[in-house]
């Protein structure tokens, strides 16, 4: 049960005051009137809910007291990304299906999006009343302060629409680059609706890059899948160690949909992924995977709420974290099997490998079951390299160092190896496994 938030602590009041000051300034100059209703609604809800602190169920493992989370600047103009940097962020094979969002704004010059028969489109939703209503309705029930900040400070939003039956062999790459130049953290609020029709088969890569120190990115992505849709979603987070990235991704899955999600995080001063997944139609499936490799003071936190709302749905959640130095990670995942969602099948496994005694990993798998005839399991383990595995490798001629490297790489590769797009898989391997080289 969500604990009541006492709004009268000094710290939380200071945060709220900073948010209000920035919001007032944003509304005066910088906001987009097309989103005014959403901005005001979100701002009001923030005031009602108050600013969360560590006893808040949603932020148990995250230090929300950090003043930089509400001391942000709102940039009026997005930074310009040079061509070489832009090119380096595009995975091979995505050159004709890449969308660049710089500080939340679509950069049409850098983007290249071609749909052969017009069955896919990307459009701003300023004049799309239906899409705006969707965001408004979502905002009304939102409890995550950072998702609400996204809505409160939203200036642009886009709809990626995939029509019924569309199937892509390759992947669409969405690049979200956040700059951080300036004295205070620079807020970036990209907001994307992804709507896939019936029987679509689509791959999407969301690559979140914090370009500079001080980048503060709070993206919101909403995916809704029509009946029979198959979606492969890869999320890659990387960037400056002194940046903050807090993303909310929600997915509504209809009957017989299949949603594969693989999140790979390199960490930073604060990284938090909030996934809210609803298996709304009978036979919907989700295969969720998250991997992070962290060092020094990097953090990566995962907060997952997965709802079985129909019969016969399947969910698999797998978490792998490798932590060195004073890194911190958490996996807080609850699977809720609602009444009537009989024959649900769910499994959660969380494992963290600690390479340093000063690193900290928290695992909190939960189950809330309100239906009959279900099969739900969960497990978690935090520890060091398995000594029996280590010994086995040594009896196969590997030195201690080499055996440790094989085992730590293999631990992360259980998830990295599942990325279904080779250029992204190789890129993530290089990004993450390179951190194990000391």
């Amino acid at each position, binding site marked *: 049960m969500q604990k009541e938030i006492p709004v009268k602590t000094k710290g939380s009041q200071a945060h709220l005051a900073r948010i209000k000051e920035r919001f007032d300034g944003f509304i005066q100059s910088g906001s987009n009137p097309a989103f005014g209703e959403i901005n005001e609604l979100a701002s009001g809800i923030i005031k009602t809910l108050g600013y969360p602190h560590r006893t808040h169920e949603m932020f148990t493992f995250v230090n929300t007291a950090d003043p930089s989370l509400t001391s942000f600047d709102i940039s009026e103009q997005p930074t310009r990304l040079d061509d070489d940097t832009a090119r380096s962020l595009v995975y091979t094979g995505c050159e004709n299906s890449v969308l660049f969002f710089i500080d939340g704004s679509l950069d049409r010059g850098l983007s290249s999006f071609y749909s052969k028969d017009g069955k896919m489109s990307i459009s701003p939703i300023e004049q799309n009343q239906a899409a705006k209503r969707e965001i408004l309705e979502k905002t009304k029930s939102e409890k995550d302060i950072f998702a609400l900040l996204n809505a409160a400070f939203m200036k642009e939003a886009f709809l990626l629409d995939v029509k019924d039956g569309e199937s892509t062999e390759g992947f669409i790459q969405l690049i979200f680059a956040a700059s951080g130049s300036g004295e205070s953290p620079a807020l970036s609020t990209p907001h994307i609706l992804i709507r896939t029709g019936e029987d679509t088969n689509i791959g999407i890569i969301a690559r979140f890059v914090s370009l500079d120190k001080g980048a503060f990115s709070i993206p919101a992505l909403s995916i809704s899948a029509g009946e029979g849709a198959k979606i492969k979603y890869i999320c890659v987070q990387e960037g400056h160690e002194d940046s903050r990235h807090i993303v909310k991704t929600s997915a509504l899955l209809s009957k017989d949909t299949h949603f594969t999600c693989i999140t790979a995080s390199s960490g930073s001063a604060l990284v938090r992924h909030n996934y809210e997944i609803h298996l709304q139609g009978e036979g919907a499936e989700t295969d969720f995977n998250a991997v992070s490799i962290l060092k020094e003071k990097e953090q990566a936190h995962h907060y997952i709420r997965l709802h079985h709302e129909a019969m016969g749905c399947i969910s698999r959640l797998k978490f792998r974290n490798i932590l060195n130095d004073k890194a911190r990670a958490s996996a807080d995942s609850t699977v809720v099997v609602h009444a009537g969602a009989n024959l649900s099948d769910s499994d959660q496994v969380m494992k963290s490998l600690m390479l340093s005694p000063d690193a900290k990993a928290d695992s909190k798998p939960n189950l809330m079951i309100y239906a009959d005839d279900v099969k739900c399991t969960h497990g978690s383990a935090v520890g060091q390299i398995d000594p*029996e*595995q280590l010994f*086995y490798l*040594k*009896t*196969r*001629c*590997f030195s201690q160092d080499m055996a440790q490297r094989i085992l730590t*790489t*293999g631990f992360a590769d259980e998830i990295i190896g599942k990325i279904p797009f080779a250029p992204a898989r190789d890129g993530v391997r290089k990004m993450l496994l390179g951190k194990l080289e000391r």
Partner: protein
Amino acid sequence: MLEIKDLHAGIEENEILKGISLSVNKGEIHAIMGPNGSGKSTLGNVLAGHPSYKVSNGSVLFEGDDLLTLEPEDRALKGLFIAYQHPVEIPGVGNAEFMRMAYNVKAKKEGREELDPLDFDELMSRKMELLGMDAKYKERGVNEGFSGGEKKKNEILQMALLEPKLTILDEIDSGLDIDALRIVAENIQKLSGDKNAIIIITHFPRILKYIKPHFVHVLGSGRILKSGGIELAMELESKGYDIIK
């Protein structure tokens, strides 16, 4: 090749091996038999260098060098190989890549050519075919989700690729059906020769119908109580371990 003299070893405060002495020469196959708890697997683990076991007395020379001072990886590089009764699973580490790396570490040490993935794949495929192993096991995690029989075959596959001088087979026959046993045993027999040696640790004489040992030793209470030839194994089959009581 292997000279064990008065070996005493155990785990924590518990002494399990209470004075084992054994000589194994090139070209020989030795069977170590005995009831549960007699120390058979402990002997294998001590020779391999498992850190849980402590040697309190005795010596082991392997190819003239003191084995007990060597790390497990150095024992392996010297040519000692142990095939486990219950090999660990290592998810995330591809079976083929693991074997290629192990092959290349040994090849480099011995001054032989290392193999690239394509050449190694060819070599591995040939060996897998002889063992009746499906190619799908190349990409799986090491032993991950393998049945008991497939794990044993995977151990013999490693033996075939690493070509050790001394192989210790720890209950390689346990959990194998008749056909799998025959295939595994035939492959082991093919791998044996006059330049290497094999120690088969087993409860049951059935594998010895396929791999004929030169010597059979019966362990009891941490000691070799009786040694003989194949006829000793046959006597055990008809009379059981009562013959050593």
